[in-house]
């Protein structure tokens, strides 16, 4: 993985020392994609905006806890998706139409070439429900429990769907 986060690390260090301008710079850089990415996982735009705000408040308060493990965008995403799940846990799960259904993936390297490879087609074969589970557990890196809250389904269903998705992918790719 290329280290393109030098600037981010320096900004985060300044944020940890209470630099408001550094927080704003970090926010301007990372809020747009976080907003877009969370929007694909929650149908309520107001809730998503609150989650983005919460995330950067948490960055402000927790910048000192960032240990430089993994890069800053991944750290921010980890905060954001967990804030979203916390919010969903408090409210009732947001109903989601099939069009909104969540997406899939495996690891970055595979995904970078996915448009041309078989995996893209294989993922396309999965039903939206299975793809949603694969995305939450694999790409978003959520635990079974977190995925269950995000998708509004029981934990057992997450597990069975993940197993089925794995089986189907194996068959298509074989």
């Amino acid at each position, binding site marked *: 993985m290329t280290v393109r986060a030098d600037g981010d690390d320096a900004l985060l260090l300044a944020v940890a020392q209470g630099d408001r301008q550094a927080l704003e710079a970090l926010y301007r850089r990372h809020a747009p994609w976080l907003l877009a990415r969370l929007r694909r996982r929650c149908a309520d735009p107001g809730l998503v905006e609150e989650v983005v705000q919460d995330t950067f408040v948490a960055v*402000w308060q927790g910048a000192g806890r960032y240990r430089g493990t993994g890069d800053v965008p991944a750290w921010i995403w980890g905060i954001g998706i967990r804030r979203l799940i916390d919010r969903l846990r408090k409210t009732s799960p947001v109903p989601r139409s099939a069009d909104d259904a969540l997406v899939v993936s495996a690891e970055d390297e595979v995904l970078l070439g996915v448009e041309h490879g078989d995996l893209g087609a294989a993922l396309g074969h999965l039903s939206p429900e299975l793809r949603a589970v694969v995305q939450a557990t694999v790409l978003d890196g959520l635990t079974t429990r977190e995925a269950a809250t995000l998708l509004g389904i029981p934990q057992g269903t997450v597990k069975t769907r993940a197993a089925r998705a794995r089986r189907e992918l194996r068959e298509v790719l074989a």
Partner: protein
Amino acid sequence: MTTTWHADPIALAAYVEGSLDDVRASSLEAHLLTCDRCRDGVATSTPADAIDRMWGGVVDTIDTPHRSAVERLLLALRVPEHLARLLMATPSLRLSWLVAEALALGFAVIAANGTSGQDEELVLFLFLVVAALLPVAGVAVAFGPGIDPTYEVAAAAPMPADRLLLIRAAAVLASSVSITALAALALPDLDAIAAAWLLPALGLTAATLALGTWVRPLVAAASVALTWVLFAAAAAVSTQDRLAAFRPAGQVACLAVIAASAAVLAHRHTLSEGRIVR
């Protein structure tokens, strides 16, 4: 791994809009974690007003002072926000003050449990005298320049000075009475005398507030405290009964003090000719 691949602007715009297909969106999301250039692409496709609005929300949250657990409890009990804040700024409602009160009473209770006969009566006497004085001390340090961190703010606030005084005094009284009541439960040979501090406490607090019409709370409290200690000691000596001040006659005297103080407080404005001393 170095990436030379970049998403095209149309795909980025479609992603922001939410119309990019699932598989390509996943691919892009993985890429966005590592690519500044494509993140900038997302930023330019995102409406600036949404970003500015959320930033306003972030700044608001960061600038809001942290609320203590007690203040959140007050708000949960439907206490208006401005009152909760005024109460929280009261020096004698700080945790350190309340702990000090509890410790002082705790030592008295421990001493009372460790003695018997004549000594026990002496310790009980001290417990009752101190218990009656605690709210007075609390009221004394509840206000005033140099003590109250919000003194200047309160002086300029559109709230009558005596209303703030009474609100804080009531809160101080409630907190120290609860602490004292708990401590009294731990006294040995629990009987009616264990509650004999309650009316004196109310009477002394009322007298302090009433005196506050003419002098600063600190001066008022000191005068009241001195008078009380002298009165309790004199009653004990003259009647050969250490607890004389707490017998029915003393309780009736306290009621009289409460009534007189209430009358003074009700006519505070006329009595002080509009000049409230704080």
